[in-house]
């Protein structure tokens, strides 16, 4: 039990915070219902994929500043490919765009390994490159998305045996999110590859000495990040029906959620669940601020304060929980 708390305590606390926020939301707006929850799930979608993309590389001991630009590029690519094309064509577009994310992510990793330039600089340079590429694909917002794709995040998933009122609380967007993340993450987490990603983030030397192919693992981590970012880009196209070449606010949001989710920026620690819950928390805070009609200017302050306060709190308990006599 105590180990569970030590390993999962942060995620559990975050989850409790999320539940608390739902209660608060219900108090502010008694009419808050399943439909509103569906809206929340749809809003979470691109952020969740962005944060998943960031989480993988942060666990591997890196950072990816190109996440948002990658989402923009994959989004405009998908939107322009589907523009005027048949519904079936989208069946080809989706895997194409995902493969593109994978390859471009791997390119990030390869550049880091080959040039030996720090991650933060390589991905910063790639931020400009991908942004530029997005502008070449679509100079202005536009394009289209297949109807069936758009429908894939609207409404709920009928689950046999579940009463209607409960089924209403299972929005498609949420199911889609969890299916996509689980398909990639769960097998990965259990696999040797996944462990290698943790290993190079935790202690690169020890990982190397344990026989982990460090360079290859780093490339794979970035490739996965690219894949998640492509999912994020697709989800943007799906929810808005267009592609926009200017990156949205996903980079900073992803870094913030990663840290709130209990993933150490040094690497090696944490999982995907925490950051995803953190995304829900941040989006729900946003909802609550809107429901309360708080002065928009104050919301930026509140969001910043929450970020700083939670992280400071985390640092504070780490400091407290260190064994007596340990160095400060």
């Amino acid at each position: 039990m105590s180990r569970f708390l030590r390993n999962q305590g942060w995620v559990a606390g975050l989850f409790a915070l999320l539940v608390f926020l739902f209660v608060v939301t219900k108090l502010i707006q008694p009419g808050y219902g399943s439909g509103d929850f569906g809206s929340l799930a749809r809003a979470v979608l691109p952020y969740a994929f962005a944060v998943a993309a960031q989480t993988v590389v942060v666990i591997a001991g890196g950072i990816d500043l190109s996440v948002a630009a990658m989402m923009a590029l994959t989004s405009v690519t998908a939107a322009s490919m589907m523009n005027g094309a048949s519904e079936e064509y989208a069946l080809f577009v989706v895997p194409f765009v995902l493969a593109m994310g994978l390859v471009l992510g791997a390119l990030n990793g390869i550049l880091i390994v080959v040039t030996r330039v720090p991650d933060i600089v390589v991905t910063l340079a790639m931020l400009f490159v991908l942004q530029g590429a997005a502008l070449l694909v679509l100079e202005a917002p536009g394009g289209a998305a297949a109807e069936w794709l758009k429908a894939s995040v609207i409404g709920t998933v009928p689950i046999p045996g579940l009463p209607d009122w409960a089924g209403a609380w299972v929005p498609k967007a949420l199911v889609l999110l969890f299916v996509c993340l689980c398909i990639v993450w769960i097998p990965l987490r259990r696999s040797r590859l996944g462990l290698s990603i943790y290993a190079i983030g935790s202690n690169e030397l020890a990982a190397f000495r344990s026989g982990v192919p460090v360079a290859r693992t780093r490339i794979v981590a970035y490739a996965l990040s690219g894949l998640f970012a492509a999912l994020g880009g697709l989800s943007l196209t799906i929810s808005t029906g267009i592609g926009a070449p200017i990156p949205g606010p996903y980079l900073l949001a992803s870094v913030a959620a990663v840290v709130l989710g209990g993933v150490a920026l040094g690497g090696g620690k944490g999982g995907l669940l925490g950051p995803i819950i953190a995304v829900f928390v941040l989006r729900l805070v946003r909802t609550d601020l809107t429901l309360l009609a708080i002065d928009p200017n104050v919301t930026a302050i509140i969001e910043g304060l929450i970020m700083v306060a939670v992280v400071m709190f985390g640092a504070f308990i780490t400091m407290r929980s260190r064994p007596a006599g340990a160095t400060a």
Partner: protein
Amino acid sequence: MTTNPSPQSPLLDATGVAKNYGAVAALRNASLSVLPGEVHALMGANGAGKSTLVKILTGAIKSEAGRILIRGQQLDVRSPADARRAGLLPVYQEPALIPDLDVLSNLRLTGTPVEPFRAWVRELGIPDLDIRETARHIPLAVLRVLDLARALAVEPDVLLLDEMTAALPANLAEKVLEVVRRQGDAGRSVIFISHRFVEISALCDRATVLRDGSTVGVVDIEPGIEERIVEMMLGTRIEKTRVTARAANDVVIAGGGRPRLSVRNLQLGTKLNDVSFDLANGEVAGVFALEGQGQEELFAALAGSIRPTGGSIDVDGAPVKFSHPSDAIQAGIAYVPGDRAEALAMQRSVRENIALPFSAALRKWGPIRMRREQVVVSGAIGRLQIDTRAQGEVQRLSGGNQQKVTIARWIAANARTILCFDPTRGIDVGTKQEIYKLLRELAGQGKSVLFYTSEMEEVQRVCDRVIVIFGGRVVDTFPVEEADEAALMRAAYGLPRGAKADVGILAEVKPGSNAEAAS
């Protein structure tokens, strides 16, 4: 070189291996040949290049020259993963478990079968391991054993153990030795690095001796071989200058004066129990202990690095509480840690490293008086005879010179008390002599030194008195005249002074080894 004609062809055969770290030649011309089924000792003084050779054999670092044959074939071992595939499995001097993964994940990472691992762990004396525990939270000694069990579980052809037993308590060390010997009996080869002759003679068939990066001999282990090995290890440096260094200085122990440092009932979690002793002005007090008996914690507590949980420390008769090393420094107490990497800013110059304490206090943040600093720093450099050819970055200095920088810093700062934790680690014999002399000189000037060493003979060369620690307690305090190696060893194992009991954990394993242990 002692040839040992053998009907078998070697399993592993390395010749002419060389490796340079910048200005430091870690290996010049090392060779090593291991037969199937043999437990082969790799011996050499500190810094002789043993660990470096193990790292090269297992692909952790690249050599610059040399030829490595495995089963007669020249395999390209570029990474530990390749070595693993070739049947070579190391347990390095530093733990290799991933700190943030639990044990099970660590096993999966290396493709180690779990059940054999568990069996080995039990065999190695840890019956109740929780395989779900994160490596970061496991004590160092247990981690070392797990590292070994992980290697054993895949049944490697050649097992390379680098100072496996150094950090282990006696009971675990004994189990490890048993297991290793059985490996040999089962026809697998083991390369075994240790500084402990008892272990070598109990375990090994042959030994390869390294000196200054070159193989200087291969010998069969037989009774009485120790002197040969020591001779080979140390080369011409063998002539013993016992106590002469000390005698050269007239020891002035300030009799009757207040002790410089007075420690009473010091307590630190489970690591230190009720430690009490005094350190006088003008005295070099030795601390002797086996690995991991609480000596590191004692030094850290005196240096203000960690806070004791009980007891008191008095400096010049006045009680002090250190909450940060700067408090200790303020009281004139400086700490030279054993690990250079802990004490030096590796990318900075020698000068900056030596002058670092001058800038530490808030009121010293302003412009530096470069001329004055230059004088003080070069004084210290001169005094320790630091080779400053590569002084732009400390990391380019040789290990011994790095170690000298850590000491020079406090000579420059004129600290009144120096806590030296194994300051001669990885230092060559010439430099060692200089350091011994320096410490004596400091004492001659009325300063006091607390000196921990892992090498027994240093105690007699440098110290006035020796404090022996075992299991976090002071078990004995000798005047140096009585501190011969046998007496020290006995005390270090917690045996009462004067007891005639056999020393060494393997006393009953191999009759006849006690004689060597005491020699």
